[in-house]
């Protein structure tokens, strides 16, 4: 009896979050220039790196991928929080449950980051000719890495929007926190590029999942406190 009730509530919650994610997507498609700006930023970065390095080998491919991924993530997530925070946010946050809205935003950012990193991989492979060999591990790395990065950045973005001068504080606070995720991503990507062969790669994937869960849990726990400010 109780479990059925709980299941219904969970279903309702998931439906609400799903509709909020759809709303985020629609809003972004109304303001296409934001998405295009992020894409242009990513392609420009790739091109600059390609021209600066000349001949890119797999090791530098891996490093550049993670660095460009990091900055694309920083840009897109900060934009998604600062742009709509002034005019419409009061309406949204009073109409919807703030925590649900935040989770929806973080999940939307996660999906966006995954798509962006796949596009980044394609554009880098197009320019440099270095290709991923093990797509399974690469997708796991991108999916799990983007999940942790998007929740962590979303939380820090909210925190920095609350403080006075947001973009500086945001990058200062966000960069050190995601370093463990980026290091694990480097390692997983190196395996998917066949730079290293690691038999204990499962341990790294589990660790990545653990760090993701830790970040998701702490953001969800801390969100109401941050929100009440």
């Amino acid at each position, binding site marked *: 009896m109780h479990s059925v009730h709980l299941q219904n509530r969970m279903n309702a919650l998931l439906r609400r979050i799903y509709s909020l994610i759809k709303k985020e997507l629609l809003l972004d498609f109304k303001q296409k220039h934001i998405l295009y700006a992020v894409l242009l930023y990513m392609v420009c970065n790739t091109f600059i790196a390609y021209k600066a390095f000349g001949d890119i080998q797999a090791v530098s491919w891996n490093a550049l991928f993670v660095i460009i991924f990091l900055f694309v993530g920083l840009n897109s997530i900060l934009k998604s929080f600062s742009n709509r925070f002034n005019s419409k946010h009061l309406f949204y946050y009073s109409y919807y449950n703030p925590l649900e809205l935040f989770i929806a935003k973080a999940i939307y950012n996660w999906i966006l980051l995954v798509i962006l990193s796949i596009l980044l991989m394609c554009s880098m492979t197009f320019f440099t000719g270095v290709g991923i060999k093990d797509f399974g591990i690469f997708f796991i790395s991108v999916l799990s890495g983007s999940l942790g990065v998007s929740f962590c950045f979303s*939380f820090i973005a909210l*925190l920095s929007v*609350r*403080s*006075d*001068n947001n973009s*500086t*504080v945001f990058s*200062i*606070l966000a*960069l*050190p*926190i995601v*370093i*463990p995720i980026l*290091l694990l991503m480097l390692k997983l990507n190196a395996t998917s590029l066949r730079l290293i062969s690691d038999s204990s790669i499962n*341990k*790294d994937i589990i*660790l990545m999942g*653990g*760090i993701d869960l*830790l*970040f998701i849990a*702490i953001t969800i726990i*801390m969100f109401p*406190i*941050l929100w009440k*400010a």
Partner: protein
Amino acid sequence: MIKGLWWKMLGVILFLYVCIAGFVVPLKPGIYNASPTNIKAGQTLNLSIEGYNSHYKSAEELTAFLKFDSIQILKATDIKVNSEQSIEATFNIPEYINTKKKIAEATLIVDNATDGYSIMPAAVFVNSISKTPSQVDWNTDFVNDLHQVDAFAFPFRNILYETIRNTFFHVAIWMSMMILFIGALYSSIQYLRTRDRRHDIHSYSLTSTGIVYGLFGLASGAIWAKYTWGTFWTSDIKLNMAAIAMLLYAAYWILRSSIEDLDNKYKLSAIYNIFAFVALIPLIFVIPRLTDSLHPGNGGNPALGGEDLDNTLRMVFYPAIIGLTLLGVWISDLVSRYLKLENIIQEKENIL
């Protein structure tokens, strides 16, 4: 934070005790060097052994052994004593040694009545071992002959040598840093629950002291690394994770100084403090355990585990943690009193 004077005195006394005992107590006698390290089977090995803190000349019953495994133990046929720190031992290496590998590895054991026995692992490698088994008269029950000498001295470990004393400073300061950060975490949670300004001051001062402790921890580690590894900094995982941890907390300082509105500042810095502590856990406790590291405590390198932290080290190491923590709490107490006074002065100026 804690009432009374006793804990400050205790902290100072413990730290003085750690400084004195940590530097004055000698190391146990050990084997510093043995050469040559490679020999062919069936030859006579003249092994020149350099001792450390040893009394080879004045000691009685001086013997030396090469131990291949628990039953294949070779006794030195002759020992020539050059000085207190130097001897030359002669071994007749047999043609046949029962081993699965191509090269047999032997542990060197030197024993005498004054110093007790001292061990050097992987001292001699024997190659070109004959494949046909033959009878060798091994010296099997030598363990009963060894001298057990109990002295108040720190253990002698190869590679570490005298730098083992850094345990009392480097390791203890990291431990007390963690305790201070846990205290800061507690104060942050208390601030968010009660919105009492005092908790914010405590949290800020504990975190600041913790960061300073962390910097001292990095510095003492770097100096230690210069003498054992040859460089101040390596790409070792533990070092880099510790550096990232410091960056995380440095961001806390920047966040605090960047916000003008006071209520917002206390609240956001408390939230970030909790967040940073949670992010610290995988950095310090999880990731370094998954990767190979040169740092003591990883991959068979000597450190705190099991035999390495013997009772003599414990007698200085635990007081070092307690003493440094108490000193840290005292420092942060002073910082928070200063901040409270500054607050009062500011409020008075605002009124005027």
